[in-house]
């Protein structure tokens, strides 16, 4: 039976869960706020959260929600107005140099060194971080291989596609083996294949135990990659949980999209009435032209959608028709977002 549209063949969901450390958090943020000079309101209005070690943590929100400001503070590039932020136990305000040792950043836009080749970009980055020469050479070759860049290590960044640039920046960020990797809107502007490749690499990082903090305004990306998702809007944290729990917590409404092949004698009105009489069903809707065949009916149910499949099939049979396909629809993060903010994300 097909799964819901937003929980498809996710590379991360198949991976074994990381061992959750009970001790120090990978990222700890307490009442973090930022007001930019001359701004009327706070871009970040007292946000608190914790990212566990080995977790993929998704930051979901529209543009201007405060995602990039949060990442900017955590990566020592923006000074908070108030609050506290620790990365791998290092206070990013009190010890920015120490924090930069343990974090890696993949920015939204290409900031590769255009005067250097791909391989040199990796090597020089590692040298800034004090990775010994022999080790950085070996590491660069391994990462170029892993990120599918080994065939043109001497090419200049300008000669590569957006997806390859993105991979180069991730490989570069991994050269100093950061404890926490920050990915800011990583798949913006990537084609579907490049996006999938990126997702697979993130899933690999997660299985290797690297903590990944990822910002996105893409529902699929947040749901697919993240162990937990923080929904942020207008500088405020609206919700924080696993994608499944966020969806579950919002509503227990599910949908069953049924395709029904009717006999000539079958009466759609009667079937409709019978379906609505079921205790778990609270509404039905025709998705196609009511005069056409097969019928496509959406059934809104409470609770476990799978439990409603059998009674629905029985009623369809009793109405002189045949159920040929059922698709269970879960509400997705987009619904959660709309529920929380009253508007669509994009």
């Amino acid at each position, binding site marked *: 039976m097909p799964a819901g549209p937003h929980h498809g063949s996710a590379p991360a969901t198949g991976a074994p869960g990381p061992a959750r450390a009970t001790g120090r958090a990978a990222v700890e943020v307490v009442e973090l706020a930022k007001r930019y000079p001359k701004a009327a309101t706070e871009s970040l209005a007292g946000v608190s959260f914790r990212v566990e070690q080995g977790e993929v943590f998704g930051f979901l929100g529209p543009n201007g929600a405060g995602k990039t400001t949060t990442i900017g503070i955590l990566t020592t*590039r923006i000074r908070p107005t108030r609050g506290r932020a620790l990365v791998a136990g290092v206070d990013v305000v009190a010890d920015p140099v120490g924090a930069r040792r*343990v974090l890696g950043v993949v920015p939204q836009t290409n900031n590769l060194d255009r005067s250097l080749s791909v391989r040199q970009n990796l090597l*020089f980055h590692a040298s800034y971080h004090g990775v010994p020469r022999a080790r950085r050479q070996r590491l660069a070759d391994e990462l170029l291989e892993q990120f599918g860049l080994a065939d043109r290590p001497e090419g200049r960044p300008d000669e590569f596609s957006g997806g390859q640039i993105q991979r180069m920046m991730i490989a570069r960020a991994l050269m100093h083996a950061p*404890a926490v990797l920050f990915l800011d809107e990583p798949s913006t502007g990537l084609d579907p294949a490049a996006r999938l490749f990126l997702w697979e690499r993130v899933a690999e*990082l997660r299985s290797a*135990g*690297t903590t990944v903090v990822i910002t996105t305004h893409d529902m699929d990306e947040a749901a697919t990659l993240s162990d937990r998702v923080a929904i942020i809007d207008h500088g405020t944290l609206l919700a924080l949980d696993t994608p499944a729990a966020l969806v579950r917590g919002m509503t227990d409404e599910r949908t069953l999209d049924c395709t029904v092949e009717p006999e000539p004698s079958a009466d759609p009105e009667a079937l409709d009435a019978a379906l609505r009489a079921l205790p778990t069903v609270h509404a039905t809707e025709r998705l196609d032209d009511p005069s056409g065949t097969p019928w496509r009916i959406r059934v809104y149910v409470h609770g476990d959608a799978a439990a409603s499949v059998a009674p629905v099939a029985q009623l369809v049979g009793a109405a002189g028709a045949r159920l040929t396909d059922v698709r269970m629809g879960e509400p997705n993060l987009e619904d959660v977002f709309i529920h929380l903010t009253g508007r669509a994300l994009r």
Partner: protein
Amino acid sequence: MSGPTGAPEGPGGPGTLPHLPHWGPWRTGLAILRRDLFVTGREFPIFLAQVILQPLFLLFVFGKVLAELGYTQPGYQQVLFPGLVALAAVLTGLQSTALPLVIEFSYSNEIEDRLLAPLPIGGVAVEKVVFAALRACVAAAVMFPIGIWILGSIPWHASTAPGVVVMIVLGSLLGAAMGLILGTYVPPNRINVTFALVLTPLIFTGSSQYPWPSLGRLRWFQVVSALNPMTYVSEGLRALMTTGVPHLPTWLCFVVAAGYLIVLGLVGMLGFLRRALG
């Protein structure tokens, strides 16, 4: 999964490197400097052409052509040569920080990887200034063989050589600090017009083509020239290299140039921090 992400554990948590015990911010600074030297070294002839061309033509036209045609007095070369060494130092320093900074902060964002390196943000600015000053010192040094080639001989006293070296270094740093200010305060869309408005007056009020004390009859221009930091580098080099040419006292040149360096360096550093930190 196998591969580099499964690196051995370090103090930062799983996957982090065991950092070298002696790895301090200054070594990160040196690594960044090594990157700049590597890139410049690869295109050294282009770099030389870039920094030499302007002083070369000034030297040729004012020192050679006008002299041959009899439009300048004998001995003008004495005035001109130290001034052009100063010009090469200050201008190369300025251009080596200003333009790259404008580009790296706005268009290429290349500086980000260095701002995320484990050294204080100000260290990145210091590295920029040091690197630009190195380029400027090379540009000034190259003026000596060129001077000998074009002019036949150059004013020079072995006894004052250390002072000349110090003044060239000072002038190079001064130019780099001025470039730090331009590169961080001027918005990228204004850099072209700013360069035009700043460079030309800087070149022609820096006492590189005339001795400052002789400007008594052009009082206002003397005052304007006195405000240009380059004047003290030109005059200082003239004081150290020539005899019989009027010049400001050597000590005054060093003190004012050093004072300008401190003030402009601090202003430039503030501009850099403002750009680098949100």
